[in-house]
C-alpha cells in the first residue's frame, strides 16, 4: 500500500485556481505529481458525467477547484457547480465508490501556497483510500498500445 501512487484528475477554473496553480509554479512551491490538471473556463462547466467518467477510466481521485464563493469570474458559476457536485458526491457513494475520492476546493488566483497545500492534502487522503474500486477494462492503468 505504501508504494501506491494515486492518480488524481483535477478540473480547474481558468480565472482562479488555474491561475493560483500557475502562481504556485512561479513561486516554485513543490508538491506531489499525482494530480493532472484539465483546464476549464469555469467550474460551472463541469458536468457530473465528467467525474464519473474519470473514475471509470481509472482515476483514484477527482478534484474540482474554482473561485471562492462570491468571487466567480462569471458571477454565479461556482454556486451552480457547488450545488450540483454536492449532490454528485451522494450519488457516487451510492454507486459504491468512496465519496472522499471526489473533492472540491476553492483557490483564488493569488493563493499559490494554498494550491500546493490542497494537492498535498488530497493526494495524501486519496492514497489512504487505496486504488479505485471500479474501473473499465481499458483503464488508464493498462499500458497504452
Amino acid at each position: 500500500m505504501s508504494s501506491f501512487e494515486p492518480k488524481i484528475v483535477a478540473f480547474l477554473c481558468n480565472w482562479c485556481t488555474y491561475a493560483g496553480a500557475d502562481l504556485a509554479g512561479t513561486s516554485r512551491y513543490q508538491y506531489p505529481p499525482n494530480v493532472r490538471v484539465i483546464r476549464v473556463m469555469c467550474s460551472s462547466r463541469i458536468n457530473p458525467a465528467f467525474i464519473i467518467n474519470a473514475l471509470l477510466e481509472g482515476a483514484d481521485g477527482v478534484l474540482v477547484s474554482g473561485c471562492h464563493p462570491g468571487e466567480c469570474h462569471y458571477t454565479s458559476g461556482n454556486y451552480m457547480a457547488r450545488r450540483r457536485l454536492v449532490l454528485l458526491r451522494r450519488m457516487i457513494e451510492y454507486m459504491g465508490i468512496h465519496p472522499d475520492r471526489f473533492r472540491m476546493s476553492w483557490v483564488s488566483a493569488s493563493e499559490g501556497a494554498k494550491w500546493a497545500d490542497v494537492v498535498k492534502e488530497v493526494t495524501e487522503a486519496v492514497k489512504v483510500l487505496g486504488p479505485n474500486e471500479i474501473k473499465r477494462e481499458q483503464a488508464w492503468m493498462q499500458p497504452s498500445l
Partner: protein
Amino acid sequence: MASKRIGVYICHCGVNIAQNVRIDELRQFAAGLPGVRVAQNYMYMCSEPGQEMIRKDIAENGLNRIVVVACSPRMHEPTFRNAIKSAGLNPYCLEIANIREQCSWVHKDPDVATAKAKGLLAAAVTKVALLEPLEEREVPVTRSAMVIGGGIAGIQAALDIADSGFKTYLVEKEPSIGGHMMQLDKTFPTLDCSACILTPKMADIKNHPNIELLAYSEVTDVKGFVGNFKVTVRRKPRYIDETICNACGTCASYCAIAIKDTFNEGLSKLQALHIPFPQAIPAAYVIDPLACRYTREGTCRQCEQVCKELNAINLDMQEQMVELDVGTIIVSTGFQTFDPNRKPELGYGRYDNVITGMEFERIVSASGPNQGQLLINGKKPEEVVFIQCVGSRDKTVGNEYCSRVCCMYTAKHAHLVREKLPDAKITIFYIDVRAFGKGYEEFYDRVKGEEVYYRRGNVSEVYRKGDKLICRAEDTLLGQAVEVPADLVVLAVGIEPAAAARDLGRQLKLSNSPDGFFLEAHPKLRPVDTGSDGVFLAGCCQGPKDIPDTVAQASASAAKAVIPLARGTVKTETMVARVRAEACRACGYCVDACPYDAIELGEIQLGRVRKTVATVNEVLCKSCGACSAVCLSGAIQQSGFTDDQLLAVIGAIGKEY
C-alpha cells in the same frame, strides 16, 4: 472531414523546463502519437525563431492543428494564436500543454516530471484533434470611459483620458473630489504643499470639456463587457443645486446643527449645511441628511429663507439614478487608514494626546482646526514620540504587508515638529526605515540631522504617568527596555483598502490579493489590468503607494483604458456556446443557467420543420460553459470545451505512457 495533421512543439524554456523534463524523450513520445506529423523542440518557442519554426511547418507540411508544450496558456496563448494566424491557420486550432508552471517548476524528479509531461502532452494532442476553427468577431466600442474614485489617482486618470479626446465620467462618492491628498499638509520629500499641487488639477477637472463630474454619487450596478459597459450611478441629493450655488456660505452661518468635520478627522465641527473644504470641486455646499432638521423631522428650513437671490437650496431634492454607457472603467477608490482602536495598548481613544498621522496632518495644516499651530490641549508639546508600523507588518491585526508611505510621512512629521518647536524632544520608534524613492534617503538623512532620535523597537504600551504619557518599548539596538515620556504620541497608521469599495469590487468581478487590495492581472507585467477586460486599477486601491507612484499608475491606467476607445472596436468572445438545433429539445435549462441572459428560446426553421430551440446571443455570451453542463441533450456546447473534447482529454490524461 479533413484528416488532422498535428504539429507538436516542445519548449525547453532555457532550463526552466529542460532541467526537470527530458525533452528528447518527450519529443519522441509525441512523434509516435496518432495524427502527429511533426514533433519539434526548441529553446524558446515563444521567441521569433520559435514562432517561425511553427509557421514554416504549417506551410511546408500542411499542418492544420498545433500543440505547444511549454509554459502556461495564461502566459502565451495569445502569442501562439497570433503566430499560427499569421501562417494562415485558424488561431483556434491550437492547444497548449502546461509543463512548466504545473510540472517542471513543481516536480524536481525528472522521472516523475517527464511521466506527467507525457500525460499532459497526450491530452493536448487528443484535444487538438477535436478542435474546430472558430470565427473572431469585432463589435463597436462606446468611446467614453468612467473613472470611479476622485482622489489624485482618479483625477490624473480622468485628465489623461479626457486629454486624449474621449468623454470621461468621474464618479466620486464624497461631495468633493480630492480624496485623502487634500487632507495632507506638506508632501515628502519636497515639502510641497499638498493642496497647492492638487487644486490646479481639480480645477482642470471642472473646466475640462471632455469630463463630466458626478460628485456625491456612487456606482450601484455594472452590466456589459469591455467596450460596452452599462453603469448605473446613484446621484445622492445635495439639497443644493450645484449648478446654481456660488459657495458664498451665507446659508451655512444660519444652520444651527453642528456635526463632526470628517475632513479634519473629527477634530473640529462644522454645520450640517457645509462645504467640505474651501477649495471643494464642485464648489457647492451640501446638507448632511442625517443631521439636518428638515430631512429628519420636517422643521427649520432657515437656509432656504436665506438663499433668496439664487434660490439654490431645494430641501425636497430626491436621489437620481443615472444609466451611463461607457467603453472602459478605471477603479481608483483609494484607501482608508488603519483604525488604531484595534491596538488598544497604544492608548488611542483613551488619551486625547495619542493621535494618528492623519490627525497630525490636520493639526499642522494651516487650514486645519488649529490654523497650523502645534498645540495639544492648548499647550505646545515638549516631548513628541512617533510610533511606526501601526497596523502594518502586523499579523495580530491581519495586515502583514508594509504600507510603504509611513516611514516617509513620519520623517516629514518629525521635520514639521522640529520646524514649529525648535526645542522639542523628538523620538521615532521604528522597525526598519524604508526610504526607497527619489530624494527619500536624502530627506531621511536631513531629518536625522535635525536631532530626531530614531530608536529601533516596537512600542508595547502607552500609559499615563502624572501629566505625561509613557511609551514602553524594547530598544533592540541597546538591548534594553525603555520608557520614553511624551506630551504627544503620533501613531503612523497604515493604509488599508477602502471598505466602501468592496461592493464595487464584486460588481466588477474584481479579485482581491491576500492583503485585501484589488488584484492586478499580473504582478510584474500587468500592474494596472485586472482579470476583467476593460476594467483597470489606479492608486492605493491596488496596493499602498505614495503620490508619485499613484500618479504614474493613474497615467498608465488611462493609457490602457484608451486603447479600446482609440481602436473603436473590440473582439468579442470567440469560444462562445453553440447550439445544434436538431438535438435541442427546448427544455430551457441552459437559459436559466446563463449568468448573462445570453440564451433565449425561439422558433427557427430547420429544413421543413419549424422548431423551438435555444439560440445564443454571441455578443453577450462570455463562454463560461454553464449552459453546456446542464444541457439534457448535449445540444448546446461551449466551443473549445465541448463534451466530446473534455471526455477525450479525461481518457488520455491519466494513462501510463
